[in-house]
């Protein structure tokens, strides 16, 4: 496998803006990626910059939520990938408010960014944990391995972003045993099962983004099967 390459210049100084004053933005568009998961396009305030993989913090009333950006730094808008929590205090509003609604945010923050390396990158995501990798791919990153863990075939979103840029792209469907037919290139099982039974080579630079069970299990697998690899983590709680 070729080493992962990232031709774009990364503006590392933008990380220092994590404590910058809140920006005011508007919700421009929404589209359902699958049942329960929205892609939200926000107006990008002038002067706002970030590094692919970083997050912003949205504010509404007295609530705040952090989301990784799925857009590229060169895009004229900001993209978020949001799982709508039924009965929640934040995401139902994001899903139902009128387009054009104002929303404040701060950031960018976080260090879950691609680091140049002589080792290939292996991205592992569950659900909306795919967002930082969408941003990296849209920014020109290519040659990586991506394992995307979802439950059902219809949750395999952003396939078109990754198929042309990845060295290996494997949607992992945890409910595949109970569902008829597998999408092209998909693996019937969790990302951790794929990493434990199928993934070969290494060492890798592993980038893990998703729920803590996946992060815990993947870290164990890295320690046991991919000695010498590096691990970067972004946990969704």
């Amino acid at each position, binding site marked *: 496998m070729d080493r992962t390459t990232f031709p774009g210049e*990364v503006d590392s100084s933008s990380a220092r803006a994590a404590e910058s004053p809140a920006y005011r933005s508007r919700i421009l568009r929404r589209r359902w990626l699958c049942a329960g998961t929205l892609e939200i396009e926000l107006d990008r305030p002038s002067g706002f910059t970030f590094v692919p993989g970083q997050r912003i913090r949205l504010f509404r009333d007295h609530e705040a939520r952090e989301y990784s950006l799925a857009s590229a730094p060169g895009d004229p808008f900001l993209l978020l990938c949001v799982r709508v929590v039924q009965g929640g205090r934040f995401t139902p509003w994001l899903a139902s408010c009128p387009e054009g609604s104002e929303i404040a945010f701060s950031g960018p923050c976080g260090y879950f*960014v691609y680091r140049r390396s002589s080792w290939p990158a292996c991205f592992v995501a569950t659900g909306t944990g795919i967002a930082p990798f969408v941003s990296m791919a849209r920014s020109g990153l290519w040659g990586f391995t991506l394992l995307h863990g979802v439950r059902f075939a219809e949750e395999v979103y952003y396939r078109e972003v990754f198929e042309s840029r990845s060295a290996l792209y494997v949607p992992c469907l945890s409910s595949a045993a109970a569902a008829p037919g597998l999408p092209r290139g998909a693996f019937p099982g969790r990302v951790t099962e794929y990493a434990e039974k199928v993934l070969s080579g290494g060492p890798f630079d592993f980038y893990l983004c998703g729920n803590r069970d996946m992060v815990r299990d993947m870290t164990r697998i890295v320690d046991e099967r991919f000695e010498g*690899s590096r691990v*970067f983590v972004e946990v969704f709680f």
Partner: protein
Amino acid sequence: MKIYTGTGDRGKTSLFSGERVSKADRRVEAYGAVDELNSVLGALAAALEPDQPGLVSEVRRIQADLFRVGARLAFAGDETDGPALPELQEEHAAWLERAMDRMEEELPPLKGFILPGGHASAAWAHIARTVCRRAERHVVSLRDGQAPGTASEAFRMLIVYLNRLSDYLFLLARKCNRLHGQDDIPWGG
């Protein structure tokens, strides 16, 4: 929000730069000592509150600086890719020097060795000073094994800061005793 992930249950941890290392690794020892120092400073601030808001504010600022120290120590090698770490600068050590100059003007000249202790806040400051010296020794050890480069320059700055901080904490201990009407305890040896 649950804070545990279980990724360290087998005695390994991830450095900020991604390397999986033993929790007995020298870097983990080093940033662990800095974390311990920060916690002791928290106890010191608690012993000072509420009657010394100015000193508490100084201690809080140092606690924030120590997060920068810990972040650098959790970063292996010279890698500079990605968002920049909030690094310590010369100004951080200079700020400690100015704070020490102010305290020295208020304190009587030291005429010999003194025993650590006195008021509770002074005792915490002395404990913090000794933990700070331990953290400094760990960083010196890391620096000694580091080839010249970005990391070695960053370690040099950390050593300057921790050396200065130890002196600051010694003076702060004396000031705490003075604020609470206690004299230095001279060593009778």
